[in-house]
């Protein structure tokens, strides 16, 4: 079963245009464009780009390379179109309403914080690895977790592929996020128990997801006031 969130369908409108979500998606798309251009000139250049600006646990723990800067730059690099599309669709579906509750600049700080926490989790788990880790999924999992906290009843238009038959139901965000969370837990279990290598940084996803708890440091006062009153944020 393939499950892809497409759009948030909460009935109440946004109070302002989600500029930061839009800007983050644009920045990520532009970066992938740059990666494509570099890979066409010389693949070695692309590999060096990933090694320099991706998160390499071994280098970070040796105090070499960009260090903390790569925790941020790695969230803007992706290993291909499907990697980017999956992350950006999730950011589009969940990020706009979280940005609405925080404001654009606080949302950016929260997004980066989740990315940094995801990277820290990954670095500590894969401490001896010298392979670069790239992608926005840690930060995006943080945004998903924040959406679950703030809009527990929210419904998301989802593309569901069951035995190659497509459906587009409106599912509760709770079930979608639970599906993704459990799939990460299951994958981590398989990696630990059976030494399977999926080439996906599941620990980073989990680290970013738990970073969502910090969203309360970024909510603007009215949003927190409504959250405390159990009103729609």
């Amino acid at each position, binding site marked *: 079963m393939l499950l892809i969130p497409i759009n948030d369908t909460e009935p109440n409108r946004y109070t302002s245009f989600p500029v930061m979500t839009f800007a983050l998606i644009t920045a990520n798309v532009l970066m992938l464009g740059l990666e494509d251009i570099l890979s066409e000139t010389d693949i070695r250049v692309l590999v060096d780009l990933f090694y320099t600006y991706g998160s390499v646990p071994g280098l970070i723990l040796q105090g070499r390379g960009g260090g903390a800067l790569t925790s941020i730059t790695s969230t803007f690099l992706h290993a291909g179109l499907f990697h980017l599309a999956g992350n950006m669709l999730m950011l589009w579906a969940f990020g706009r309403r979280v940005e609405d509750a925080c404001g654009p600049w606080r949302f950016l700080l929260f997004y980066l914080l989740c990315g940094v926490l995801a990277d820290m989790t990954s670095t500590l788990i894969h401490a001896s690895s010298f392979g670069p880790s790239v992608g926005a999924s840690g930060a995006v999992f943080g945004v998903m977790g924040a959406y679950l906290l703030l809009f527990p009843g929210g419904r998301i238009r989802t593309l569901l592929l069951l035995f190659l038959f497509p459906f587009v139901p409106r599912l509760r965000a709770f079930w979608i996020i639970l599906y993704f969370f459990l799939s990460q837990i299951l994958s981590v279990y398989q990696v630990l128990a059976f030494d399977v290598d999926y080439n996906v940084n599941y620990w980073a996803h989990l680290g970013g997801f738990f970073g969502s708890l910090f969203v309360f440091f970024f909510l*603007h006062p009215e949003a927190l006031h409504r959250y405390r009153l159990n009103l729609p944020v």
Partner: protein
Amino acid sequence: MNNPLLREAIQLARAGRRQEARDLFIELVTLDEENEVAWLWLVDLVDDPEDQIIALENALTINPDNEGARARLQALQDPQAETPSPGAPAPPPAKASNDLDEALMTPGRDLAAVARRYEAAGELEKAVIVYEQMIAMAEKRTTKSQARQRKAALERQLELTQPVPMHTTFTLLRLSLGPFFLYLLLLVIQAAYRPWRIPLPFYVGSIAVLAGSLLLVGSYITPHHPAWQRLLGKEGLRSGGMRLLLSSLGLVLLALPYLSFLASALQRLSTTPGAPLPGGG
């Protein structure tokens, strides 16, 4: 409502802090004479009827179609309605609660219509009472269910109008800690997860980030925090120019440590070894 000052003022008014709310609304209309919402809130926060008239007149200048404001202004300007002449019969007692009792006790009365009328008149508490009666008396499950839903919705609206004080200090600290925490995490990673190796200037930078956040949030979002009155005197942080100056200073204090961290990290980028060749390990 994207104006944080307006949000703060309304929160203060709802929390019963009339003087602070009044001062803030006065600040708002000083900054923007066209702020109808602020003028309307001021009507209930000033005591002098002359001031109330001025506030209503200003609101009507901005929005002449505001019938509620117009009715209120006429009531204030027409002293005959307020003070009956001597010897005139006493005005009849307020009918409001009598209407409610009559609606609830008259058999066959359409309670749903009564409740809707109270809702339209803004008398939400009475509408809730009517819905409670409907829930108790209705025989059909759908009627009970609809009345319950409507009652719950009105109770949520009523909760919004009741003050749930959230101290401005809590808001100030909450919003200031986010950037500070992010900066600390970046420092720890940059020091290869050995915090004792972080150079002293970066510790000073973290204090600057916290101070900058507090200044920025304090001047932009919580300008009426009591601390401003202690620091700047009774007037507090009233002036728009002063607020702009302090929030800019806060932003600079917040941004400089991040920029110096960025410079340090970019400098260290050159120490990145070349990527290992495929298959080379």
